[in-house]
């Protein structure tokens, strides 16, 4: 499954990236926000929008604000708080940059028991690992160069060599 990293919003304190699946009309974050609005109603939707906007414009993305998903610290994978059973997963790259994406309603005790949630978390983990293993890459570069990230069904990146080659060749 091919995704691109898309710069979704930029404020004075930070940039939000999201994933955009090939062939989809909307990026992942937008699909999730619309689903969240439908499930929880307008009031909570507005609160969430105001909160995300507030982080972008006023505070940046302090890791203390996010729900720790009991993954290793180096993965940097968290979820937004205050969204009830709905999970918005994120990769915390720094206090100025995150990839915020959807997930869905968590109906199982552990996200690992839900294939949909597990896939999202694994995709983010793969991006996190890619950036850790290759310091020459960063989110801006991946987004600006519109490189395809090809994930397997388990959320592993299957085209790392191709990504590195494209970046090296500047295409």
């Amino acid at each position, binding site marked *: 499954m091919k995704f691109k990293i898309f710069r979704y919003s930029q404020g004075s304190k930070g940039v939000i990236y999201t994933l955009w699946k090939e062939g989809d009309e909307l990026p992942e974050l937008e699909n999730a926000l619309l689903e969240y609005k439908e499930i929880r109603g307008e009031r909570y939707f507005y609160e969430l*929008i105001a909160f*995300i906007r507030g982080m972008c414009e006023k*505070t940046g993305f302090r890791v*203390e*604000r996010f*729900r720790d998903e009991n993954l290793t610290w180096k993965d940097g994978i968290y979820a937004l708080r*205050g969204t009830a059973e709905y999970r918005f997963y994120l990769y915390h790259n720094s206090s100025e940059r995150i990839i915020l994406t959807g997930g869905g309603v968590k109906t199982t005790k552990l996200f690992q028991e839900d294939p949909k949630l597990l896939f999202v978390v694994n995709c983010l983990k793969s991006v996190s690992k890619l950036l850790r293993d290759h310091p020459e890459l960063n989110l801006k570069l991946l987004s600006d160069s*519109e490189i395809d990230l090809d994930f397997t069904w388990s959320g592993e990146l299957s085209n790392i060599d191709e990504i590195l080659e494209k970046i090296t060749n500047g295409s």
Partner: protein
Amino acid sequence: MEAKKNRRTNLLDTHIPKDISRYIDFSIMISEMILQKLDELGINKREFARSLGKKESQISEWLSGMHNFTLKTLAEISLKYDLDFSEAFRLTLSKSKEKKQHAIAQKTDQIQIHL
């Protein structure tokens, strides 16, 4: 992808009712003040929770930026950590006032250009 790049709006540009926007601004500002204080004192969430006799999960909710603080909670933190939360309200209100004035100034400029 070009069409995607050219999208002018996204859901984060949604018009938010003023009361909700202000409520979240207050919550973000209060949690930011607490977080800065913890940084200053070099203590973590666990120690902060223990000092107030609360669970760490409850503190995490407070610091999320989407928490509806009660006056009782604010009074408790304010006393224990010498935090003046009126500053958070003042800052939020002055920022919103600045924004309003900026918008009025921009509109005035536009009107003058048209004239």
